[in-house]
């Protein structure tokens, strides 16, 4: 199994979720994070003076999938999250050793 973690722009969440449903993803967990990267933060103004905001709001998607689904999932995210501008985000993929579904005690692939 694979553990996929994607950092995306908040406004793309809806699209990404739809796309993931299409490729058969049945569960996922998201959280609010803040990111810093090529997209350099932004400038707000406080009473006429610039104030630097370094970290921009992003959403992290946390997703466990079976090995064979990995590629389609990565592709789905890439497509739906892409705007072509700086800050579109990144996908991090790792092996996942074990999964347990709390409700039933099922393990691994069955627990996904």
């Amino acid at each position, binding site marked *: 199994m694979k553990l996929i973690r994607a950092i995306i722009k908040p406004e793309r969440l809806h699209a990404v979720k739809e796309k993931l449903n299409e490729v058969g993803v049945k569960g996922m967990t998201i959280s609010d994070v803040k990111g810093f990267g090529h997209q350099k933060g932004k400038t*707000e*103004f*406080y*009473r*006429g*003076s*610039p*104030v*630097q*905001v370094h970290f921009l709001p992003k959403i992290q998607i946390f997703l466990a999938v079976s090995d064979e689904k990995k590629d389609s999932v990565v592709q789905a995210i890439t497509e739906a999250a892409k705007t072509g501008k700086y800050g579109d985000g990144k996908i991090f993929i790792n092996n996942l050793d074990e999964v347990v579904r709390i409700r039933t005690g099922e393990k691994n692939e069955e627990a996904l």
Partner: protein
Amino acid sequence: MSGANTAWILTASALVLFMTLPGLGLFYAGLVKSRNTISTLAQCYGIACVASVVWFVAGYSIAFSGEGNYIGDLSKAFLKGVGTESLSGDIPEILFVMFQMTFAIITPALIVGAYVERIKFSAVLFISALWILAVYAPVTHWVWGGGWLADLGVFDFAGGLVVHATAGVSAIVIVKMLGSRRGFPEYFDPPHSPVIAMIGASMLWVGWFGFNGGSALAANGSAGMAILVTHISAATATLVWMTIDWFRNGKPGLVGIITGTIAGLATVTPASGFIGPMGGFILGLLSGAICYYAVIFFKFSLKIDDSLDVMAVHGVGGILGTLLAGVLASETFGGLGLEKTVMQQTMVQIIGVVSVVVFSAIVTYVICLITKSIFGLRVSEEEEISEGLDSGTHGEQSYHI
């Protein structure tokens, strides 16, 4: 006794208390970092309580009793002799005490904006108590209590000198003694909640009807005119500030919008009983622009960390309004007219400004020295840069979600 005037001043007292609690508290709390939210609110709230007790004990008496030119006496300490029957003008004196108490509450609370995010809570309470007795009450006596500025015929309808100039100048002095927030001016954070600040600003605006309108001490055309010109100045200054922001930074931010309002309100305050609608409009135009650049001047040219711009908005606004009150009171500008010539009146206004500024600066300086030697002024570096004053000083967190 006039029942109608009493009815209005009862209301106005509630409105002006509302300006501080929660109005000013929220306005300021929205502008600081989230980990200093509770601290900022507690400062405003604590000052309100201290000021009330001090006013009852001696403040009112110092400001409003006796014949002194420079200071009142203690004959009405603990409100001795002020019963339900005694009058002040045609309203009950006890109500006048209350109305003036709400002014004595908000004025030191205005200064909170200067020292947030780094000052000790004990110092805040102590400074405020002394300040009411030694700065606010005497100046009130000069201007409204029959003192020497009143004798000169100074125009200060609702507190350009008494409230805004004293607060603004003292803000700068305290900041000088206290020092800037660590990191200033290279690094500071944007307001943590423009929403909360906007709620506060709106309450200030509404409450200001009681502040300026109540200062007529009557429910009549004068009060009506006062709130109308107050409102016009606020609305106009807001639009001016917003427009400058829009041009300079490309976007009209909400924090700028509400700051313009406060500038317009502070500026019209001393003039509000003397001018007509056009005067309010002119003050709005001027204050929106002048206070805008004053903020930048104090913060970035002088590098004074008057954190929420008490001097630039209230001080500069109050002084500006005081200086122009004579001019705009003239019939040329649709004002209600003056007895002196505009020139003479403006000289008096200048004397008022200079004396109040100098007096406030010196006395506040001494108060800071005393406070520093007893309590110290600043929280620890650890508390300031890490946990914040909410947790460090008050042991609480603003949101447990």
